[in-house]
């Protein structure tokens, strides 16, 4: 592997930082007021990635399934929490709902891919498990964020319809299936859109990486197709789970719409 691509030295890395100066110069010239945030964001990105590089290097030498699963679990937890952090409203238990949805969706999908499709030996080989899981998590997180946010906002916007249906004798499912469907649909849109133009508008990062690392483009494409299907399935399962859990919480067994459980984020 060492021979198939050019290794970037720290000096070359520093040279690449010149590129971020383009943004800074633009911000200063146009008085966008972004220079400070840009520099902080760039610094964070560099530190985070360098750190994760070291973590991964260490991780890939591990062969204890428990250690690797523990790391995967930490990644899942971070994804579950960040998914909620981007929604506008909260209710008691929302973090658990998100965690449970991210965990079940990513575990199912990644597990199936590792054992059933790619057939990695051993099944927890971190060189495969961690990057694949990471990509599934990132996309599931986005889907859950969108779906959950849309579901809560949808219930608020459609309170009149939902409660009118309830008052007419609808069950909670009959009254709320429209906001549930809307939320799942909205959550799925980015995944479907990106599949539509995959390879035409966007060259997926993972495939590009593999090609740079010297892999045969056809092999890289095969991996990419597998990962896109994993991402789509993970997002769908995660969104479905989180919206149904939120539905069960916000529409009580007494067929009531409990908007009083919702509060604005940051309060």
């Amino acid at each position, binding site marked *: 592997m060492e021979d198939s691509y050019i290794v970037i030295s720290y000096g070359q890395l520093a040279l690449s930082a010149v590129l971020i100066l383009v943004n800074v110069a633009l911000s200063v010239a146009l008085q966008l007021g972004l220079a400070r945030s840009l520099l902080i964001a760039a610094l964070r990105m560099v530190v985070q990635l360098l750190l994760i590089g070291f973590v991964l290097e260490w991780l890939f030498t591990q062969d204890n399934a428990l250690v690797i699963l523990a790391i995967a679990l930490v990644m899942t937890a971070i994804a579950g929490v960040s998914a909620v952090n981007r929604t506008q409203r909260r209710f008691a238990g929302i973090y658990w709902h998100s965690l449970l949805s991210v965990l079940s969706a990513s575990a199912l999908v990644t597990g199936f891919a590792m054992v059933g499709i790619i057939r990695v030996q051993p099944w927890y080989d971190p060189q495969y498990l961690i990057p694949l899981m990471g990509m599934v998590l990132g996309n599931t997180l986005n889907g859950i964020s969108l779906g959950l946010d849309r579901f809560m906002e949808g219930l608020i916007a459609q309170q*009149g*319809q939902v*409660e*009118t*249906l*309830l*008052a*007419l*004798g*609808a*069950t909670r499912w*009959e009254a709320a299936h429209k906001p549930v469907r809307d939320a799942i649909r909205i959550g799925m849109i980015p995944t479907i859109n990106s599949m539509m133009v995959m390879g035409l508008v966007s060259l997926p990062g993972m495939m590009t990486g593999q090609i740079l690392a010297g892999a045969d483009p056809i092999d890289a494409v095969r991996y990419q197709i597998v990962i896109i299907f994993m991402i789509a399935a993970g997002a769908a399962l995660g969104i479905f789970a989180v919206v149904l859990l939120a539905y069960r919480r916000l529409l*009580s067994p*007494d*067929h*009531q*719409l409990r908007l009083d459980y919702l509060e604005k984020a940051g309060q």
Partner: protein
Amino acid sequence: MTSSQALLSAKNLGRQLGDRWLWQGVNFELFAGDCVGLVAPSGVGKTLLMRNLVLLDPFQQGEVRFEGKPLAAWSLPTYRSRVMYVPQRAIAFDGTVQDNLKQVFDLGAYRQRQFDPAIIQTWLAQLGRGPEFLKLNGARLSGGEAQILALLRALQLDPQVLLLDEPTASLDATTTAQVEALLHDWLQSPHRACLLTSHDADQIRRVTYRQINLGEFA
């Protein structure tokens, strides 16, 4: 069910908003043929009482019984199909007025029943509206038209108890009188009762046989 037994009874109801009790110890009974006015100054929580009676909001205190059975013994969709709350702000679903009227028969609670255009036409005629009313777009109804739609949508489901929250608030004087007459006719069938709020004291006197003053429980 004996005729002396209340259709709907409320015992010791209480409603809290924050740490303040809006009303407490509310008791009343609705009998077959009854039409009761629920009166109180604005902000006392007449709407909240109606929402509580159909359990759209959870109880904080007290008990409601329908046909002698506590609400816990009822499936709530069934209960709400028989004790029907018609909110003041009438909501139309997507589609025409007729779609709105038909659509509710898709609900599980009415699976055995069917939309009956004849009865709707009769009621519309009583309210001075022709069959063209059925073709109007639900999203573009005026406040008054939406109220007519909401009332007919509830009436066609043949509930036993109607909880009407300001049912004529957006209607002109003529249509208001027609709605009152329709309600009067509706109450003539056995085992029906109505609880009604109105900001119009004359209407309460015209339509209802007795009143509950919620302000007394504040």
